[in-house]
């Protein structure tokens, strides 16, 4: 139990520290969004939902099967996400890990969102926006 909690906590921390988009150097946010959307549509059309129901046994207190319960899911869910990733890769995008910017850096200086995806260096980091999207900034280029 403790190991599980530790693992989940670690996973949450790791997930929170890194932004992991499909990335292409030189692409504008608009180009990235349009490619993402077109790949989403391609994947949705080529790998449509295929809903299946599995039945699992329900065991009584004495260990005997006393019934069954359904579990419904889309068998194509994973394949659809893979199709998006492959589509993006064909357009020159690869998965990148970009750290989120430290809060203190954002409090002391102001930065402009970068208009194009830059080469990933130690000074490039991501900022979460209020609408859930992210922008990239270069910590070596404050506005003020």
């Amino acid at each position, binding site marked *: 139990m403790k190991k599980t909690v530790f693992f989940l906590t670690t996973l949450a921390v790791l997930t929170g520290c890194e932004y992991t988009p499909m990335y292409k150097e030189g692409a504008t946010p608009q180009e990235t969004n349009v490619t993402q*959307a077109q790949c989403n549509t391609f994947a949705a059309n080529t790998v449509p*939902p295929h*809903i299946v129901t599995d039945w*699992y046994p329900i065991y009584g207190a004495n260990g005997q099967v006393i019934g069954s319960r359904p579990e*419904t899911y889309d068998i194509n869910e994973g394949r659809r996400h893979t199709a998006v990733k492959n589509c993006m890769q064909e357009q020159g995008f690869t998965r990148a890990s970009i750290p989120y910017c430290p809060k203190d850096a954002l409090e002391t200086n102001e930065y402009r969102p970068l208009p194009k995806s830059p080469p990933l260096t130690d000074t490039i980091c991501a900022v979460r926006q209020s609408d859930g999207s992210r922008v990239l900034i270069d910590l070596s280029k404050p506005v003020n």
Partner: protein
Amino acid sequence: MPGFARLFVTITACAVALTACAPTHFSGFVNPGTNVDTVNRDTAECDVEANTLFPAAVFTSTSYGGGYGYSPGYWGGWGSTVTARDVNAGMRNNHRTQCMALRGYQPYSFPICTQEQLAGRSYAPLSKSPTPGPTICVVTSPNGNMLIDLSKPI
């Protein structure tokens, strides 16, 4: 409870539920002084552009409620729900807003005129995009929506 009283309670409950769900605002764009035909044309062009660049893409996601464990009387798991949503909807809406912004429009949520406000009077649809104010509201109908100015009945 007598039959008619039960019926009355049911109808009242339904009316309250329907009123609670009815939209009270209409999301549109405003650029004061622009001719309505121009607004409609710009809106249609931005819609087409947004729909072309960000077409619908329905993705499912399965959530497993509960889990697996001992529930009074049996061991087992319970509950999974498959939901579907258009994963491009957010990007499409953002693009539409940006497209309209480039043409000088700001998104605006107009109130829908209430029957009390209309009070049986007639109004002509506005011919130009208005400056938002307390007298501007939207009349909805199956044939389309129109903006009116409550301070200018016919």
